């Protein structure tokens, strides 16, 4: 990007934050751009670009990282099966969950489960929601995974809006 975009209006940013909060609160649900745009009170065309400018990541990618974050917490802190965790965190298939999980974290869900149980109490004095955010999957990895997918020709829908 050769010229920086204009600064965003704080009132718009506050409404974009509301959409991000809604994804945080219910990341297992489906969040098509239309639904998010409605929460923020902006047009669909405006939403994806504004969100990415504000938070550095497209909304769909943000949602995936939140789902993986939540899956990681469930792997560490519960005895739910990996299949149950996949469906509880919003994935339609175990295969997609496992593949996305590996692409984003570099590990398999079962490896995280084994390692996480041992270290589960290290962050015991940090409020749990904040501790989970601190262990959120690295967004740089997610972006590179996205590039790989683009190279494979498996673009996700918001790709077109980003490049427009």
């Amino acid at each position, binding site marked *: 990007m050769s010229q920086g975009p204009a600064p965003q209006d*704080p009132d718009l*940013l506050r409404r*974009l*934050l509301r959409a991000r909060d809604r994804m945080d*609160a219910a990341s297992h649900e489906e969040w098509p751009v239309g639904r998010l745009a409605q929460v923020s009170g902006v047009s669909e065309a405006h939403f994806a670009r504004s969100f990415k400018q504000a938070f550095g990541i497209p909304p769909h990618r943000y949602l995936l990282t939140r789902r993986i974050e939540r899956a990681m917490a469930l792997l560490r802190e519960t005895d739910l099966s990996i299949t149950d965790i996949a469906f509880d965190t919003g994935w339609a298939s175990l295969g997609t969950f496992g593949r996305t999980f590996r692409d984003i974290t570099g590990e398999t869900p079962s490896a995280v489960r084994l390692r996480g149980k041992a270290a589960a109490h290290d962050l015991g004095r940090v409020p*749990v929601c904040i501790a989970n955010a601190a262990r959120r999957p690295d967004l740089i990895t997610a972006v590179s995974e996205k590039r790989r997918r683009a190279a494979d020709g498996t673009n996700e829908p918001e790709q077109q809006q980003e490049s427009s």
Partner: protein
Amino acid sequence: MKQGIDVVGLYVRDQDEALAFYVEKVGFRVHTDVKNGDYRWLTVQHPDQPSFQLGLFAPAPPVLDAATAQAVRALVAKGAMPPLVLKVDDCRAAWERMRALGVEFTQEPVERFGTVDAGFRDPSGNGWKMIQARG
């Protein structure tokens, strides 16, 4: 207590709005509200915590230049300011009371690790965790 932390400040987009929110919805009290020209020193406090004040400050001239103030307002609105934690006796009761008053909750009460926690934001975008005191 003669020594200790006396005031910690938040940046808010509008001090009148923040005052109404923290007093009428969260249940804090005004401690100090004084104006000097365009500058307003505004602090509130928890009724059970008289030795601590929470400042509600506007990121604005003359304290900040206009460009810095704009940048800070954007950061607050994006929820980028540090986490705040409110300890309550009964998280669900506080959630019900505050929700009825129109507080924007980001997380409903969840029971985990022997306590209950919820999350809310002030109108500016500052995020609070509300955690039930253990035992």
